[in-house]
């Protein structure tokens, strides 16, 4: 389906209502055919591009002698042609120079301040009401609400953060994806939320300093694994939310404690009694 530009439709319609339009551009060749065919008077000033000159010759119907002149036209000279009417042949014209008078912004400021028409028009301008203006005018300020307002509200974010931190506090040395699953953030089953949200919650938790993310290679297939660690700020949030938790045992960096946990877990599976930093390991 070929659709016409809305602006061209406007131009077509405007003629009947006494609105003249003066189009100006650098080259005739870049304008659409429909514009050229809707124009009665074409004035071509000096052109330099081969394509443009060719287009001018075509549109204005110039003979070789007239075409030769396009190349030699000086500033202020042009070829004008009307599409029909009294005299539809191209004419070489010289446009007199209009000497402009410089006018600075400050001068315009002064002139416009005194200009009654502008001041009258500006009185009709009604500024957009902000909350303060609404209060002043005695209106009840309504907070614009989203179509579904439950998703990103503060309480919801806090709930999700609680879920995440709870799951992480109970399983400190599990990989991120498993933690997210345990917190109910992955997959769409059983009312859990989408993967994109789990990423967002994790990002919020990292940004707010509740958790830290570690990428550790265990030397097995699957590349780097992502682990999360609750920070002191995260533990204070858990305290604030009245969540029972136990800090993971062990000292040193997260990587060190992770290896401790992996080794302890390995031997605990084999039936050994394992102790980490003098505390008994419970699987």
């Amino acid at each position, binding site marked *: 389906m070929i659709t016409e*530009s*809305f602006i*061209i439709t*406007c131009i077509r319609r*405007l*003629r*009947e*209502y*006494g*609105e*003249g*339009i*003066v*189009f*100006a*551009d*650098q*080259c*005739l060749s*870049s*304008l659409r055919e429909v514009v050229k065919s*809707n124009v*009665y*008077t*074409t*004035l071509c*000033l000096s*052109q330099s591009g081969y394509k*443009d000159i060719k287009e001018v010759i075509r549109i204005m119907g110039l003979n070789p*002698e*007239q075409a*030769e002149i396009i190349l030699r036209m000086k*500033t202020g*000279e*042009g070829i*004008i042609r*009307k*599409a029909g009417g009294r*005299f539809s*042949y191209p*004419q*070489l*014209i*010289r*446009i*007199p120079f*209009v000497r402009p008078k410089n006018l600075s912004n400050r001068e*315009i400021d002064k*002139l416009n301040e005194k*200009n009654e028409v*502008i001041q009258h*028009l500006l009185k*009709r*301008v*009604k*500024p*957009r*009401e902000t909350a303060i203006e609404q209060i002043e005018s005695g209106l009840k300020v309504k907070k614009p609400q989203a*179509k579904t307002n439950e*998703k990103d509200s503060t309480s919801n974010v806090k709930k999700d953060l609680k879920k995440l931190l709870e799951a992480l506090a109970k399983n400190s040395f599990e990989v991120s994806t498993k933690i997210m699953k345990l917190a109910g953030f992955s997959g769409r089953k059983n009312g859990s939320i989408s993967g994109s949200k789990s990423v967002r919650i994790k990002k919020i938790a990292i940004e707010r300093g509740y958790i830290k993310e570690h990428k550790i290679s265990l030397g097995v297939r699957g590349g780097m694994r992502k682990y999360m660690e609750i920070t002191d700020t995260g533990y204070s949030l858990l305290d604030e939310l009245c969540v029972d938790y136990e800090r993971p045992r062990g000292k040193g960096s997260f990587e060190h404690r992770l290896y401790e946990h992996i080794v302890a877990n390995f031997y605990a599976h084999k039936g050994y009694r394992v102790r980490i930093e003098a505390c008994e390991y419970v699987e």
Partner: protein
Amino acid sequence: MRENSSLRERELYQYKYLPSVLQGYRNQAFIEASPRQVDGDIGIGYVKNTGTVFRLYLKELVQHVCIVGRSGAGKTNTIRLLQIELHRLGIPFMAFDLAKLGTRYLKEYMPDLLILRPGIEFFLNALQNPMGVSRTEWRMSFCEVTSEIFDIRTASKLYLNDVVQSLYDRFQEEKPGSCPTMHDLNDELINRRKGRVPRNEIGYINVILNKVNPVCDVLYNCLNVHDGIPIEELLAHPVSVELVGIKSSEIQMWIMSLILAWITSYRETQEMQFGKLRHVFFFDEAAKVLGKGES
């Protein structure tokens, strides 16, 4: 300025411009028009090698004029001349300065010229329907212009239509008599994006927001009005809107096209003129909107 009419100079011109034409035939390359044939209301220049002024009738100007020329060829000067001539005849016009300030320098020639600068004297509410035009009709025009200028595809355009409609409805309920602004549209889109919306809608919202947000940023004060400067009253004066400070040509074109669409809708509520010139709109850098998309 007067045309040099001495025979010697005419011959010089002839030699200079028409080397292929035999001497003795004055201005042979162009058919010589009689003064009656180039008569009219608006003088546009002197016919070369004669002192005759080439004029256009007002009814010819209604059928539009196209001026083309490389930079420095005298386009701005021609436009200035046309504007002075229109002013002399009492025909109001609206011009937009896009790349350089030009029209303001005509204040000396026309003291009643209104020079409007965005955010200072020029305020526009793009969602405000013209007098006598229904909001539904204007909503469609607004969406058409916006999608055409910012290259928004049909699905997003229809979505924009829906958003604007819901905005009109909300304002009708909450603030009757008040018109939503572009900033309200921007806020509405941001709120929708925050809400639980289908993935395809998120795509539409992002497409529209990517265009609307910069417009609101660039034209913050200019668009921060419920009622803009009354355009219908501007149509009775010679007006120059200076958009030079707006460096984005897309936003400049959006303002120009929107005002053109506004004038079209407004005029359609009035009587037909059948060839009588009422107002002239200067559409500079026309190829940016009406071009083939090559430049």
